[in-house]
């Protein structure tokens, strides 16, 4: 069994380290995700771990094992964020699970939630509006228009799973105080699925047109920057276009990882690279949408 250490801090940047640890896909042996030393995981990190477990189950590989963090605080937090409930479906959990507690932490606007069908998207959008509107306006100073756009962006990001992945996925939403990185609060949407990925989704219609450059990066560029969809219907591809339009207005960021590439639409406050290719392979697609508090922008 291959032991893959979960980075102490697992997010969109350190997922590559986790992917590196997995090695070739599909793995030739069982996997044990060792999260004992984990101190923190973003919604992106939590949903990506679930995607790994789901991808292994769908590939009919041995059920991966996941050792639970040693830290009481971390496992309590992950538990309240809904992670272990979801993880029990696709991992053999090893270690002491936290006591069941139905209250999600106050910064968790949407705990880890499965998305498998259109009804799930209705549920996610309904829940986020019930729970998040006050927090988004009072703590992140988002205008009513921005909070509406937030729910729309969430809906479209989740629909990508239903429409394109060919399997289920997970979504989670959380606020943070990014004091060091940004100097203000942000709200983050993370959506991850173990589906076919952008390259395979667009390959039948786009690969020949692109030619030698065809790959995960080119597929992401077509989908995210040029609104290309595998459907011929001219109305398709509007979800990601709508998200980009919304993020442009509120200085938000979107980052999409699929296969071996990650593409980001980078706002002025961030130093991420727009396109990273030749990354270690990770199954499915992972989307992260980040919207900063508006207070600092207007000052």
């Amino acid at each position, binding site marked *: 069994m291959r032991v893959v250490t979960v980075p102490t801090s697992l997010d969109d940047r350190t997922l590559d380290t986790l992917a590196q640890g997995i090695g070739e896909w599909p793995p030739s042996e069982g996997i044990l995700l060792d999260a004992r030393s984990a101190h923190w995981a973003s919604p992106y990190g939590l949903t990506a771990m679930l995607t790994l477990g789901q991808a292994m189950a769908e590939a009919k590989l041995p059920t991966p094992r996941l050792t639970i963090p040693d830290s009481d605080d971390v496992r309590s937090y992950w538990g309240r964020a809904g992670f272990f409930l979801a993880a029990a479906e696709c991992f053999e959990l090893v270690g002491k699970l936290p006591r069941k507690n139905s209250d999600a932490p106050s910064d968790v606007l949407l705990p880890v939630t499965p998305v498998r069908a*259109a*009804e799930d*998207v*209705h*549920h996610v*959008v*309904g829940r986020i*509006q019930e729970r998040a509107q006050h927090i988004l306006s009072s703590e992140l100073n988002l205008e*009513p*228009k921005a909070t*509406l*756009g937030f*729910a*729309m962006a969430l*809906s*479209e990001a989740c*629909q990508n799973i*239903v*429409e394109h992945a060919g399997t289920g996925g997970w979504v989670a939403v959380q606020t943070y105080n990014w004091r060091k990185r940004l100097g203000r609060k942000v709200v983050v949407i993370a959506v991850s699925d173990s589906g076919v990925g952008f390259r395979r989704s667009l390959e039948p219609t786009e690969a020949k047109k692109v030619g030698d450059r065809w790959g995960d990066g080119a597929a992401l560029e077509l989908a995210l920057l040029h609104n290309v969809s595998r459907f011929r219907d*001219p*109305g398709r591809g*509007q*979800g990601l*276009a*709508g998200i980009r*339009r*919304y993020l442009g207005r509120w200085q938000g960021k979107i980052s999409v990882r699929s296969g071996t590439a990650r593409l980001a639409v980078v706002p002025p406050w961030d130093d991420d690279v727009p396109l990273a290719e030749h990354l270690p392979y990770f199954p499915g697609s992972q989307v992260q949408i980040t919207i900063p508090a508006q207070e600092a922008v207007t000052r």
Partner: protein
Amino acid sequence: MMQRIDLAPLLRETVATPYSDMVTRSTGAALRDRIEQTIAGASHRTTQLDFTSVGLLDFSCADEVVAKLLLRVAAEDEHYVVLSGITDSHLDAIDHVLERHGLSVAALTEGEAAPRVLGVVTPDAVTAFQTIQRLGAGDANRLADALTWTVERAADALQSLALRRLIQAAGGTYRPLSLS
């Protein structure tokens, strides 16, 4: 005569969720099917889609319910669609999908007595549309007088509005769409 379709109850009948949000493409496609059936079963020339009590509207659902419906209706003779009960929760998505398809539609937004045009439209067409709402039926001469435009400019704007089914045209005269 105008046919009014109340979308909130239609949504509840179509999707079995407790929420009032019009989200997802499949929901939009199912709603559009119901709307098209309702339109086909009546003889009205104008259909008002009423968004009152509809919560959020996302891009994919707006594409199905508004843009695709307008495209289907455009293929029929003399059928008009207007929107009502539009709030900030709906505007962004509707504008976005209309722009994407190069479409426009007359809409009554919350708190406004007169309809406005959403989507793709020239400044002259907007001015002409607003003026016709105030003046009522007339011809290019009447509009040109009201706006101190040339008759040709007024006629161009009116023709553009008529082609987009934002006003009704008959024998060189024009009138606003009936909203009651």
